């Protein structure tokens, strides 16, 4: 299943312009190569006969949506999993990677999506892990610390080797990961979705570092699902779909639309069809809300916003700026320190979760496996997870099986949950269908306000379209919808207004029809755009 340009080895001059600063990449063979890699997990074929490679000094982007097989491929190249068939080659020689230790020894470094840093350890201890320098049996990190500082200076990364990782920002932690790979002598560096947790500014800094590394000869594999970044950074783009390579293009020959359709296999509408909103009275009203996180640190620092009936307000921001705590406070999963939350004119600041649900508040949680579903319970039990105590699902404290079954059958049909079996344990459903169960549950009753947090994370494209449609339908039925998302594209497509959160505060509000990505990106990073509207209504 391959289309597009696909040259394997030396022979064809690759005059790579555009992408990373115009420096041409030497046309040698691959430094790291995957030939015919196949990997199966039970009945799921995660990687099918994948051909992939990266050259010295080249930045290759590996693009694909969730579940396309990118991480599996990288895990095999890094020795974290073994392939079922096929081979991995370094400088043209086949190698067997039995663990990350082997990969590291051969010069393959990986910066994972979820950092592999031990929080209570210092930077030096983390970098030393596995190759600890010692003297007479005792740890001796003095030289290491000096080397770290030197490496950092060379690549423009400023890091204190004695700092504790748990005290570092996400961007800084990522830089520690890069230094860690460099210290181990990485000739190829694989980065898995590195900008997922960065502000646009931090992402730019990262790109500078990566271009510097490539210039010095490091081969870089950059995994992403963000089309624009990939076009901006890479020398060459490889697209994966459903476990196989769907195509390979040069940035100058591609556009976001062409990449998206390679990713999905058909033409994808990147914009959602929706009517103009007809907002009514304020429904979700938050005033000066202050909420602490688990470490008793202020996560929400005096936020005020209001969402009217019939409108969708999006909240943009890099994860970790208080959005999670804001949602938890509004939905009752977290206590507020001060400030208020009203649903229309009803004060629900101190209300229990159940009271809020009864008042007409629905919640699509960010972490669906943790908050939204009880995996071993059946679909039908999950469909009434927060309504089991009301008639007709229970009477005089006794649960009514027939009523539950009827409800489940109805919802499974209406919301197209597959497989359509109410008695299946919900854990056996795919991510998209799990999310549909949650949405069916939340939207199948009279909803006055809906809070949706990251509703399309980890969901296949078909279900994403469905979910967006459901949110808009809720809005058109008169609900006030608060949509929190880390995907700016989603916010721009779905919401009517967008607010930006940074360090626990709302730093800007724009109309999604007229907003510019640059302005929003600036606000997400803490800068203030001149056209900031007043946010207190």
């Amino acid at each position, binding site marked *: 299943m391959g289309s597009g340009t696909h040259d394997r080895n030396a022979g064809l001059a690759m005059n790579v312009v555009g992408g990373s600063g115009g420096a041409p990449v030497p046309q040698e063979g691959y430094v790291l190569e995957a030939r015919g890699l196949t990997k199966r997990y039970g009945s799921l074929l995660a990687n099918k006969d994948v051909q992939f490679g990266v050259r010295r000094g080249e930045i290759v982007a590996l693009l694909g949506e969730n579940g396309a097989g990118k991480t599996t491929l990288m895990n095999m190249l890094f020795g974290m999993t073994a392939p079922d068939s096929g081979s991995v080659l370094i400088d043209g020689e086949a190698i067997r990677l039995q663990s990350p230790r082997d990969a590291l020894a051969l010069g393959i470094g990986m910066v994972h999506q979820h950092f592999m840093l031990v929080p209570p350890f210092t930077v030096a201890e983390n970098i030393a892990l596995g190759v600890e320098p010692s003297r007479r049996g005792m740890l001796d990190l003095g030289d290491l610390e000096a080397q770290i500082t030197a490496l950092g200076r060379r690549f423009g990364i400023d890091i204190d080797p004695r700092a504790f990782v748990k005290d570092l920002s996400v961007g800084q932690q990522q830089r520690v990961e890069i230094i860690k790979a460099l210290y181990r002598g990485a000739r190829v560096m694989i980065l898995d979705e590195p900008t997922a947790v960065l502000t646009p500014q931090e992402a730019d800094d990262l790109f500078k570092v990566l271009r510097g590394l490539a210039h010095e000869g490091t081969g870089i594999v950059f995994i992403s699902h963000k089309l624009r970044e990939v076009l901006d950074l890479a020398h060459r783009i490889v697209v994966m779909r459903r476990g196989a390579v769907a195509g390979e293009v040069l940035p100058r020959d591609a556009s976001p639309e062409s990449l998206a359709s390679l990713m999905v296999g058909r033409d994808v509408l990147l914009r959602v069809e929706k009517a103009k909103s007809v907002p009514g009275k304020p429904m979700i009203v938050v005033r000066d809300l202050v909420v602490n996180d688990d470490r008793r640190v202020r996560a929400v620092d005096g936020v005020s916003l209001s969402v009217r009936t019939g409108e969708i307000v999006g909240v943009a921001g890099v994860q970790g700026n208080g959005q999670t705590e804001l949602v938890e406070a509004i*939905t009752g*999963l977290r206590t507020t320190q001060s400030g208020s939350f009203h649903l229309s004119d009803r004060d629900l600041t101190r209300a*229990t*979760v*159940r009271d809020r*649900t009864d008042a007409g508040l629905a*919640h699509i*949680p960010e*972490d669906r496996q*943790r*908050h*939204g*579903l*009880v*995996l*071993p*319970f059946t679909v039908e*039990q999950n469909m009434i*997870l*927060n309504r*089991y*105590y009301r008639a007709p699902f*229970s009477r005089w*404290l*006794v*649960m009514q099986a027939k009523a539950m079954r009827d409800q489940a059958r109805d919802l499974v049909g209406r919301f197209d949950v597959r497989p359509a079996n109410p008695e299946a*344990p919900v*854990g*056996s459903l795919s991510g998209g269908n799990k999310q549909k169960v949650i949405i069916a549950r939340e939207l199948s009753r009279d909803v006055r306000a809906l809070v949706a947090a990251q509703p399309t994370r980890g969901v296949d494209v078909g279900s994403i379209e469905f979910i967006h449609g459901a949110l808009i339908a809720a809005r058109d039925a008169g609900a006030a919808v608060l949509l929190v998302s880390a995907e700016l594209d989603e916010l721009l497509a779905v919401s009517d207004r967008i607010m930006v959160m940074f360090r626990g505060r709302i730093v800007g509000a724009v109309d999604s029809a007229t907003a510019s990505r640059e302005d929003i990106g600036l606000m997400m990073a803490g800068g203030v755009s001149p056209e900031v509207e007043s946010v207190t209504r």
Partner: protein
Amino acid sequence: MIGGLIPSLAIVTALLIGGVIIWASGPRLDGPWFGIWFVVEAYQALVEGAFGSRASTIDTVLRTVPYLFTGLAVMVGFRGGMFNIGAEGQLAVGALASAWVGFTVTSLPLIIHLPLVLLTGCLAGAIWGGIAGLLKARTGAHEVITTIMLNYVGGQLAAYLLNGVLRDRSPLNVIAQTPKVAETARLPDLIPGLHSGVILVIGVAVLVWFVLWKTTMGFELRMVGINPDAASYAGVNVVRRMTWAMGVSGLLAGLAGAVQVAGVNYRSTLGFNVGYGFDSIAIALLGRNTVSGVVLSSILFAALRTGATKLQFRTQISTDIISVIQALVLLMIAADQIIRWIYRIGPAQPEAVADATSTAAPVASSESGR
């Protein structure tokens, strides 16, 4: 894959291994054949001792009662996501409290006195268990350790009271025990030697099944046991429900103590009714945390214990062999891969098992609960 296959195989395998141990401990005259005959005789004695005569069957049934109560107690705890190792202490305080009401109060008719005695046992057990539940829910203090600590505290408390204020002061009494409870505090017999606690425990088992699988409280409890975060989201008051779960668990164990007082000994004696703590865990796990499983397992364990005396009488093998067999059963249930490997059974289906392990409800609880 029937839910009962693994437990049954575990029992059989444990008995086989037990047989090997018996063979090794017995006389081995005239070569191996004689030794095997010895094992057969041993197990024969076991079965005879449990069900051989009317008296022994009654004994077995009587033993089943506290096992079933405490087994249900532990099961309820597990379903609520908590490991109740405190059945021992909860039973002890239940026995103490009910005996106290039993012998202190003398002027009530049976219709009032007996239920009062039993309820007191329930209350004492519920408090003893509820403390651990509240601590876990509020402070995260692991209930495994707190319940074990409470066992010891309960033991010391019992020793203190039974040697002190609750002690039988009559001149003929030389041991640490309460006076006998009034006639009106005793469970009437169904047939001579078999008290009506048997009916009570069956009724309680049905009630527990109903509450856990048919009511909203049970639904909440099971939700909390599998995923407390989702339960919060669903509007459940998790702290209250966890405390409630341990409270109910303790209540059942306390009731076990009360029934032993009201039906068997008619008093609370130091050192009696010991050993239900660990046995109840084995029973709950063997029964896969389902009511029918717990019922069957209690009968099994009661039979093993009752038969062990005859086994010892016939073969001189100490009754502790039963503890070894129990431990083996438990081992194989916990690591059911062992059974699967021995008998070449396929891996467990991912459904009701996958996310139930390692969070709260340990060891593959069967979801239907029947």
